[in-house]
């Protein structure tokens, strides 16, 4: 009962498309990948991600055209299990982990993957701390509670040397249907500033700068300094910060900044702190970096309608691209409604309710009762 091949274009949402195809068991053909680019075709890290999918599944076939601009992916069974994966160093480990989180609870065996590579980069990839603080809590909301990301070694680009162990000790038949119809109230501003192979004073300077910005909020602020040294700190110097706005109910907005040449730790701390305020003002119950994962979990839920408050500003072209990809692969359409039934009058103009009916997905692996 082979399902019909879905044809998509460009490398937009590359990882999400492949992951949804795997879950929905749909063969997918992605064409025109960077067809107009000077250097056309798939990038190293995208091929690396395909390899990761290949090693997590059984019976997948991947065909890449001669020019690299077309990929045909026929997903096999999702197996999971124990694995060590060497990530291509042109993207941080977070690039590979991010959407694997959507697959993890539905495999045959529990996920236990050691990722090796670099821990954060400046390519708008979510870093290890971002995954830990920002994405795992989203999974928790959908019923995946026993999941842990342990950072064993750090490694800044270009040398790398980071190691992170992702353990998802829970298998689900289907994720929970969420009804997130209350705006989160931020109870604490938290975060971590980390560094490898530089003076430990740098992390303290980041923390100090961020704290200064947050002082005006009157909110509890708790930013940890985490300086790594010795063998576990990789082979290159680097530093960065992840800041999180945490609500009592477990929603977390997060932003990340990585230090690059010419920036002082104070710059980074201040920048990240302002970005967190900005992101909070643009968020519903999830922030923009969490939206794709949250939507993914809503889509593959049971056949009930899940509801989630989103900010009007989150409805942007990327979001529509995302929804269209979801429809093409899984066949689920989302619906957006005004939120006057749920929120106070003063907030009605700024927020909407996203309603998604789950596709009625069930985990094909029968290990769980």
């Amino acid at each position, binding site marked *: 009962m082979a399902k019909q091949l879905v044809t998509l274009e460009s490398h937009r949402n590359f990882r999400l498309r492949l992951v949804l195809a795997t879950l929905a068991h749909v063969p997918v053909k992605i064409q025109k990948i960077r067809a107009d*680019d000077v250097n056309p075709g798939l990038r190293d890290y995208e091929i690396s991600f395909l390899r990761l999918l290949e090693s997590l599944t059984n019976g997948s076939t991947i065909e890449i055209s001669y020019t690299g601009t077309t990929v045909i992916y026929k997903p096999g069974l999702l197996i999971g299990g124990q694995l060590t994966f060497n990530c291509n160093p042109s993207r941080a480990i977070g690039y590979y982990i991010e959407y694997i989180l959507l697959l993890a609870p539905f495999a045959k065996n529990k996920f236990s993957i050691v990722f090796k590579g670099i821990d954060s980069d400046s390519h708008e990839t979510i870093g290890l701390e971002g995954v830990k603080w920002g994405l795992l809590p989203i999974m928790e909301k959908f019923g995946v509670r026993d999941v842990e990301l342990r950072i064993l070694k750090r490694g800044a680009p270009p040398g790398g040397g980071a190691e992170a162990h992702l353990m998802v000790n829970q298998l689900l038949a289907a994720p929970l249907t969420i009804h997130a119809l209350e705006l989160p109230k*931020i109870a604490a501003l938290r975060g971590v500033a980390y560094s490898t192979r530089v003076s430990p004073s740098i992390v303290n300077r980041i923390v100090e700068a961020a704290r200064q910005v947050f002082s005006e909020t*009157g909110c509890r602020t708790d930013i940890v300094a985490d300086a790594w040294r010795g063998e576990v700190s990789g082979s290159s110097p680097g530093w960065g910060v992840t800041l999180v706005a945490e609500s009592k109910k477990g929603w977390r907005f997060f932003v*990340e900044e990585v230090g690059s040449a010419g920036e002082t730790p104070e710059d980074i701390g201040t920048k990240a702190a302002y*970005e967190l*305020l900005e*992101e*909070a003002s643009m968020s519903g119950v999830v922030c923009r970096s969490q939206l794709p994962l949250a939507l993914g979990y809503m889509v593959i839920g049971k056949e009930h309608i899940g509801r989630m408050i989103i900010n009007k500003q989150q409805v942007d072209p990327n979001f529509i691209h995302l929804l269209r990809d979801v429809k093409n692969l899984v066949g689920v359409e989302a619906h*957006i409604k005004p939120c006057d039934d749920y929120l106070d009058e003063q907030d009605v103009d700024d927020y909407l309710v996203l309603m998604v009916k789950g596709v009625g997905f069930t985990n094909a692996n029968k290990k769980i009762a």
Partner: protein
Amino acid sequence: LQGVLGKKRYDINKLLYDDEVSPEEAIEKWKGEFSEEEPESQDEDDEEDFFAKKETVMVEDNIDRSKPSFASVDELTKKWDMAEENFAKLKKKYFFLSPRER
């Protein structure tokens, strides 16, 4: 849910999955920034297309990224440091206030 008054109103739900409308256009229409009289000079268009294409090539690599983009630090600083009202609004909406400020 509809666009700004005075212009043609669009239902976002119709735009979401309308393959005739590009996502970028859909957002513009929904927000009421879309002007119908856009294709003014056809002959200039070709030239613009030529330039636009180059531009997309440069931007394109950003379309599979995971983090949102932000305004520059200066703009953010201006928004959050100088403008009291922005801060007050955010505070009121999102933050649990400490007993001192309540």
